[in-house]
């Protein structure tokens, strides 16, 4: 696997294999000595066109644990990239010897564009492109589900509910693609403007009522972050009605079974899409997701950089 730009780059075998590698690395991360020599001499560039300190740090620690040299190129503020095209930035990074470019970009398809161009020889890892995909997030979510629910490689019968702005969420898309690939059942819930009915063509069940969606007894409830910048647009309900209809807390939290896993890709808007109570509930896997993010990103780096590319 040279690049990871989309969950569609994976088949069931490579997905299970990546999850297995991630699980091993999660164990390695619990050891005293956390540095591995695997990527000695390799250069990983974090090319971020959007601010995301969390994701950037996660990739940075992952690369450093594997002994890679890491360069952070914050293209959203860097004067180096002002007005420069993606092509020229890529050519520059290639000339500097980047072995992997980890890219976060506000436009859908940017990672694929870079990966399929002849501007670079190295690998591309998509750290989020527009509303399209965020594949490492989906992998770390799947790893968390495996661990919490003791799934092994069998996701059949697992029911996952994703709640919020599905239309604009790359986390939702990557999760839908991966979970469907692994054999899980996925349903989505949110207001009609943010969960258009055509989403059902992705192979998911669509709900426009959170309580009805919960009545199906999902094993996992994944809450998506509300993007504040979208709140101004008329497709979004008012803040108070969003909390009333789409927040996880109160009676909805109380109604969840003891084995249900609550997930959130972070950063959370406490008291908004998720109540503080739900975020801190023992059923919440939020911090485990963060920890697993590291293992998954190490596995992805190791996999893209090995294999005679």
């Amino acid at each position, binding site marked *: 696997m040279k690049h990871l730009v989309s969950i569609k780059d994976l088949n069931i075998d490579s997905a299970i294999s990546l999850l297995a590698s991630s699980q091993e690395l999660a164990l390695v991360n619990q050891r005293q000595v956390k540095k591995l020599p695997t990527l000695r001499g390799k250069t990983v560039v974090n090319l971020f066109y959007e601010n995301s300190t969390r994701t950037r740090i996660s990739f940075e620690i992952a690369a450093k644990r594997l002994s890679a040299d890491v360069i952070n190129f914050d293209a959203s503020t860097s004067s180096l990239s002002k007005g420069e*095209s*993606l*092509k020229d930035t890529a050519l520059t990074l290639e000339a500097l010897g980047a072995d992997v470019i980890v890219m976060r*970009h*506000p*436009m*859908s*398809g*940017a990672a*694929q*564009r870079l990966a*399929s*161009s002849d501007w670079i020889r190295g690998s591309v890892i998509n750290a989020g*492109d*527009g*509303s*399209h*995909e965020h594949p490492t997030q989906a992998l770390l979510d799947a790893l968390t589900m495996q661990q919490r629910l003791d799934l092994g490689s069998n996701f059949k019968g697992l029911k996952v509910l994703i709640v919020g702005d599905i*239309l*604009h969420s*790359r986390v939702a*898309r990557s999760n839908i693609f991966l979970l469907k690939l692994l054999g899980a059942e996925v349903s989505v819930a949110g207001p009609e403007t943010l969960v*258009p009915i*055509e*989403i059902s*063509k*992705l192979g998911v069940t669509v709900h426009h009522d959170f309580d009805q969606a919960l009545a199906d007894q999902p094993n996992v409830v994944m809450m998506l972050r509300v993007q504040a910048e979208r709140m101004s647009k008329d497709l979004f309900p008012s803040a108070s009605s969003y909390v009333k209809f789409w927040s996880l807390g109160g009676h909805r939290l109380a109604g969840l079974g003891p084995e249900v896993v609550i997930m959130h890709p972070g950063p959370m808007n406490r008291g908004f899409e998720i109540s503080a109570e739900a975020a801190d509930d023992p059923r919440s896997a939020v911090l485990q997701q963060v920890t697993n993010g590291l293992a998954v990103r190490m596995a992805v780096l190791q996999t893209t950089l090995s294999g005679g590319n």
Partner: protein
Amino acid sequence: MPIILKNLTLADGSRSDIRIEGDTIVEMGTISGSGIDCDSLIGLPGFVDPHTHLREPGFEASETVLSGSRAAAAGGYTAVCAMANTLPVADTAEIVDAVLDAGAEAGYCQVQPIGAVTNDLAGKQLSEISQMHQSRANVKMFSDDGICVSDPALMQEALAQVKVFGGVIAQHAQDPERTQGAQMNAGALAIELGLTGWPRLAEEDIIARDALLAEQTGARLHICHLTTAGGVEVVRWAKQRGITITAEVTPHHLLLTEELVRSYDPVYKVNPPLRTDADTKALIAGVLDGTIDVLGTDHAPHSAEKKEAEWGHAAFGMLGLETAASILHQVLAGTGSLTWQLFEQLISSRPAALTGLSDHGQLAVGRKANITVFNPHEDLAASTISQSLSSNNPYAGMVFKGRVQHTLYNGIFTVRDQKLQELK
């Protein structure tokens, strides 16, 4: 020295030779003496493109009148209509005359300027429509193409103005409100790819509105680049109602679908967007039943840096002139209902009538020798096209049935034996 084309098959199936003296066809039928053998080749009036972007003035890195006319000639065209979205915009008599002169200077085909409907394409006030009509360029077709004339009052006024001299408004049907930030056809694939969708309704209801405005004013309305099954139905309805409406389709909307967007390769980014397989089928049906009148290339060259970018940053548009005839031939042949008469109507006689180019669109003694000889037996590898300054060719890797053998513009070979000629 006269040129004699021997043994041509004409669109009606008859056989004929053609003798050309100077810039004129002087004899047809069986002509004694030797000439250029055209046995099993199709003799057609020179092709006419009602919809070309030549990019000059203003964007000469992408295309010039000269390079664009060379591409046109290579594609069998003897006349092209140059859209107004240049810099400055072709919204005055001076600018349209300058484009006309640049076309004459290049000499590869007639370059007929299209005038802007509104000043600077801003959609606020009408341009100098009658002055452009009265200029040397004698503009009869007006369009803000690239942008929709979305204000209905303005559109109605524009139709009323061109009605006076029998002109036509060519509308780029796209409701700007509902296509803000739109990147591709709206639907399940746009959702899957995380790209903002371009609703088909935002095209269709503009067509319906303008058809009613055309009916009201009695003026001629032309709809540029139809892309949806619904749009074909609206035009069909309007024609049945007796409205003076014509419709155009591009080669790419006949052939390509939104599935190509999966690659996120901006070479497939075009306005209006590629639609679905069902839409291409409806467009082809519209071509066959006469709902769609003409083929327009919407040849839209862009320099490399405008396409070597993220999908969202890249410019809309694709090359079309050099491949259009071959694609039309392949598409019509694919339906099993190819007739050379329909082919000729779509690519020559109807666009000539639409745009008022009276020296084109008909093969007859006494008329200007604007002739394209088409070879249906040889293939065109799309990757070999080379005349445009730009390379945003979406067909690379594809091979089409049929290609242009010779093009004669005003009695001069611009293409001979499939080779573009260097004119002095």
